[in-house]
């Protein structure tokens, strides 16, 4: 069903492209030059003057917002609000990558779980608020993720269980231009993968 939908959208987009191209520009080399990305997760690209093209062919995207990807397949302790494992977001102060006291028990609980489940793998996703420049915020997000990772490693978690990626301010948890949004966006998300 899902697949059928995708095929339909693709077909309509192609029709649109062809129909409009007929009435406008003409250079066949430009039309042929469109190099759609290959493999799941690749972006699709278009040559210039090539119409608006075909969008979002990706299936099985990450959806890694809010509480972690794949957490639903984990044990019930991950959804018990009284268990620190249910908390998978660590928040930070402005322009800082220091771990605040409140989050030390949360990180420790995840470390314990990872120690007990050595085949389990996590990605620490670093984020920042919208203020300041974007690439600097990418760097800041990575430092935040590394702060969490270094505590986990001190607690004995293996390097190979931890992946790090920083999205800076590119994937806000909350939209808005004030502190109530910003404080939710300065964060590291602990995302569990696999079973």
């Amino acid at each position, binding site marked *: 069903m899902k697949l059928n939908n995708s095929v339909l959208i693709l077909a309509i987009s192609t029709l649109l492209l062809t129909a409009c191209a007929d009435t406008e520009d003409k250079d066949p080399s430009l039309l042929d030059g469109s190099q759609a990305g290959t493999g799941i997760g690749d972006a699709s690209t278009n040559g210039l003057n090539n119409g608006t093209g075909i969008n979002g062919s990706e299936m099985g995207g990450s959806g890694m917002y809010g509480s972690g990807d794949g957490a639903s397949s984990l044990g019930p302790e991950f959804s018990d609000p009284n268990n620190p494992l249910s908390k998978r977001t660590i928040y930070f102060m402005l322009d800082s990558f220091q771990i605040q006291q409140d989050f030390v028990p949360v990180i420790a609980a995840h470390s314990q779980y990872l120690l007990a489940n050595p085949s389990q793998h996590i990605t620490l996703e670093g984020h920042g608020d919208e203020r300041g420049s974007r690439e600097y915020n990418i760097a800041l997000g990575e430092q935040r993720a590394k702060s969490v990772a270094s505590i986990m490693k001190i607690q004995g978690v293996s390097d190979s269980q931890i992946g790090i*990626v*920083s999205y800076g301010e590119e994937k806000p948890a909350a939209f808005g*231009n004030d502190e109530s949004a910003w404080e939710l966006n300065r964060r590291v998300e602990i995302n569990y993968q696999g079973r």
Partner: protein
Amino acid sequence: MVFLRNIVMVTLCALSLPNSYAALTIEVTGGTESAMPVAVVPFAATAVPVDISGIVNADLERSGYFKMMAQQAMQSRPSSASEVNFKEWQTLVQDYLVVGRVDNNGGQYDVQFQLLDVNKSGQLLGYKMSSSTNDLRRTAHHISDLIFEKLTGKKGVFSGRIAYITSNGRQNHQLQVADVDGFNPQTIASSPEPLMSPAWSPDGKRVAYVSFERHSAAIYIQTLATGQRERVAEFPGINGAPAWSPDGTRLALTLSKDGNPDIFILNLASRSLLKLSKSTAIDTEPVWSPDGSAIVFTSDRGGKPQLYMASSQGGNEKRITFSGDYNARASFSPDGRSLAMVHGNGGNYRIAVMDMASRGISVLTSGPSDESPSFAPNGSMILYASKKGGTGFLSAVSVDGKMQQKLMFSNGEVREPAWSP
């Protein structure tokens, strides 16, 4: 049946029109006091799909250099110099007059115009050009460039393009290229994961950018004409902030593969990497001086983000910004004499320019969330990203800060503008 299908196609094309043609409106505020009065008389034209004189009028007005005469105030509509009564335009206190006509010549269009000096009753410029239907807007911008250069002595930038990132919701990110007036936006890459930091190659034929499409950062170089692209950096950690060397052979970028973000120079032919900065702090956002000798970058090695300069061969690193608690994301003017930056003070982020000789800083915008400055290729304006009411849009400011224009996109957030060379 064939009839029915044609109707469907026409409808689909019509639906796609707002997206490709009317993406934005432009709002100009301010202007220079010495703006020259210019009248662009609507060109004589029948059945021409593009209002060429209207585009020329809008281009010249947006530049801030001219005070454009309203059509309603015109007493006559000459289409060539021979029809002009110069006395009439002198009485209307116009310094310059643009007249012209467009003729349909079997599918092609013949466009001719003259730029006239009202007080000297003479011609400054006169051109006749041929254009296809698709090139009519481009022809209009070209006319604006010719007029602008004649009257100001500076190269016109109306024929250029801008690249920028736009998002519609969380999983729809696009890298687009549009004409400088925002028309004809075309998506050159789209992804459900973030796209960042578009940078034009010096020849304007390729764009480097960052994509998270594989759930980690990678840098791609895409050729605009074909849409073909190549992944040039995908190291563990950050792959960010690509910046072309002025000769187009190297890319300065940020990599954190050695533990913390550092500036590297990637040789595009040999793929060799030179590590430029070696601090244990954040070093990012490199830009080349136009002569290629120096790299300016953002570093928080002193505690807060400030701009530093190094030799592009490595070494000789020194701090160059000292006022404000946050200076980042530098952009060199084409002549290398000034540097635009994001200048933060007490949580207010504005665009400022620094004179490289005196190191004096002038703040050009009002904030509070201005970022990503990019110089026009003639150095007259700085394009940047701004935010109001939660939506990001593009703005431009003249280098003296007197003229502002706001490019308001009809939907979605728009950010990280880069003006083509």
